């Protein structure tokens, strides 16, 4: 189905590796294993190199994103304000670790370096919303909000699944 992506690039041109990875991710939201193999064949680089590049850059994901992406800032200011504990409590609440997606595909946890709101550290960001000066105590409540939103949507028949 992504034949058309390849049309934009020369075969065996190693320099098209990163643009190709970006294109595939734009379509799927992540890099599926089969796609990496196809890219490897197309650009003429071993799969190990393609995989190496895909895991080197933060912009690439190898697993699909959940419906809600929880980003925990691990920048300096937040670190000083105990963002490690915040991360830990989000992980505990969702039962997964940073970089992973829950089984029901509702949540993904990511860590980021400085969200750019140091004055309200520690900061977390879920989808479009920002939560400043968060405490570990608030985490379950915040997460619950997103859970119940999904339930509402499901009840009204709007959304039945996580992203793709």
């Amino acid at each position: 189905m992504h034949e058309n992506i390849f049309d934009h690039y020369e075969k065996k041109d190693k320099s098209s590796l990163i643009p190709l990875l970006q294109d595939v991710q734009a379509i799927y939201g992540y890099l599926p294993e089969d796609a990496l193999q196809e890219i490897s064949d197309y650009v003429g680089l071993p799969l190990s190199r393609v995989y190496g590049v895909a895991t080197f850059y933060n912009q690439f994901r190898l697993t699909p994103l959940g419906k809600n992406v929880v980003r925990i800032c691990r920048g300096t200011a937040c670190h000083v304000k105990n963002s490690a504990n915040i991360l830990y409590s989000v992980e505990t609440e969702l039962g997964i670790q940073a970089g992973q997606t829950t089984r029901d595909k509702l949540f993904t946890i990511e860590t980021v370096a400085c969200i750019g709101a140091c004055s309200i550290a520690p900061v977390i960001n879920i989808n479009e919303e920002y939560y400043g000066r968060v405490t570990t105590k608030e985490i379950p409540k915040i997460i619950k909000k997103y859970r119940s939103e999904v339930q509402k949507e499901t009840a009204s028949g709007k959304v039945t699944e996580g992203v793709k």
Partner: protein
Amino acid sequence: MVELTINNIKVKAEEGMTILDAAKSVGIAVPTLCHLKDLIPSGACRICSVEVEGQRGLIPSCAYPIYEGMVVETNSPRVRVARKTIVELLIENHPQDCLICVRNGNCELQDLSEKYSIREHRYKGEHKDHAVDISSASLERDPAKCILCGRCVRVCGEIQKVGAIDFINRGFTSIVSTPYNKGLNVSDCILCGQCILVCPTASLREKSSLKTVSDALNHRKKYTIAQIAPAVRATLGEEFNMPLGTDVTGKLVTGLRRLGFKRVFDTNFAADLTIMEEAHELIKRITTGGTLPMFTSCCPGWVKYLEQNYGDLLENLSTCKSPHEMEGALLKSYFAKKMGIDPKDVFVVSIMPCTVKKYESARPELNVESLTEVDAVLTTRELVRFFNIAGIEFADLGESEFDNPLGESTGAAAIFGTSGGVMEAALRTAYYQLTNTHLENVDFEQVRGLQDIKESTISINGLDLNIAVVNGIGNAAQILDEVREGKSKYHFVEVMACPGGCINGGGQPIHQKIDKVIERMKALYEIDKKMLLRRSYENESIKKLYAEFLGEPGSHVSHEILHTHYIDRRKTRKIVNPK
């Protein structure tokens, strides 16, 4: 020529040389880790740092070219401190288990620690915690012991052009691994072990079969037989401080008998047999319009590569089993019958220069009457360990002869262990099979040596035989692509996965001495030259074997016992479970 000063010594060196090489040329040693001769420098480890007048920072000497008037200091206090710190940091990230490590005594990290007199732990590093990849039948990968020098990645990618492993992730979590961290057995790896030969630590190592072998030797009912590959006799002495290229055949036989093997045979016998079958197959293909070019099949690394990447060209592979498998097959049929032993009790151990042979011996189709042909494979290195455990002073051993009938061989078999050897041996016999006359000058200089691809046209009785010898799997693709496109002019192509052939196999002694491949090669040609018989068909035991058992080359019995088939593995890589 460029003139420069290194450590107050005036040095004249060629333009374009690196500081490292210029220093070496006047006997100044600079330590290296990520550097690999003949490859473009990566400058990753910085252990080779030196001071250059006029430059503020330290300079990686392996990556920096010399210039006129340059003033270099390779051993200033500042350089020493920097190097020592690098080594200390590497050590702190490393498991502290030298005492029980397979590379204890032959580890570049240990050497550096000793060289810089590191006597305390000044840093407290986080240790990496990774599972050892034991998925393949031949190799183990232990990322905890990896110091990320990248040598394996470069050998696998740039020399072997397989690219099974690479750096994945980044920062502290960066490791060398296979895609998706899956096992080597499902990767592109062909198990050649070239990465082991360059790894400075024990992060890459063979999967040991020592225990299996010593159990068999202690088993009352097992009739244990050892066979020795052509290339092992030219290298094993190195591990006992003998000069490069010492032929230790006689001592090896003595040593193996002392370990308790009931019979010690020679894989060279089966190499002669391989030639009989392979030359016959080649002539048959040429005269009856069979698939050409025919590829040699004695290197299992090459066979695995073809199956995984060019599964559409399996027809081109000779159906001959590799020599040690032929030997095993005969031991469990012809020999067992002759001796009146139950073939089930025969336990065959191959002493090989090769890591892939472990995998090969586990291939299910390589069996004779449903019995595995070869029960265990020990690399040259493992045999050395076995001798040491058994208290055998190898250097002091006397010489003995192989047992018979599967121990006799000709010079043609001896050169199997080097690139071009199988081709040369086959030509000597093919000539006879085509003309019924003996070839006068048996030396085919044009297929010897270390070039990537050696090609030639040999005229035999009006037939122009186009041949090519591929030295190292990294040079195979271009010839294979031609064959795929139907443009190949060759009749016969030899491929050996390891650069130089089995003398440089992944199971051979580990050290970075410069002329090792050349010297080992010379040793094998020397053995060949000294032999009275240098053409496989002159081997008396082979003649007898055909008369008593096989009939003639390519006969029905031969096909049953000495030939095999291959599998297209382009889709799935998983095949053989470790024994």
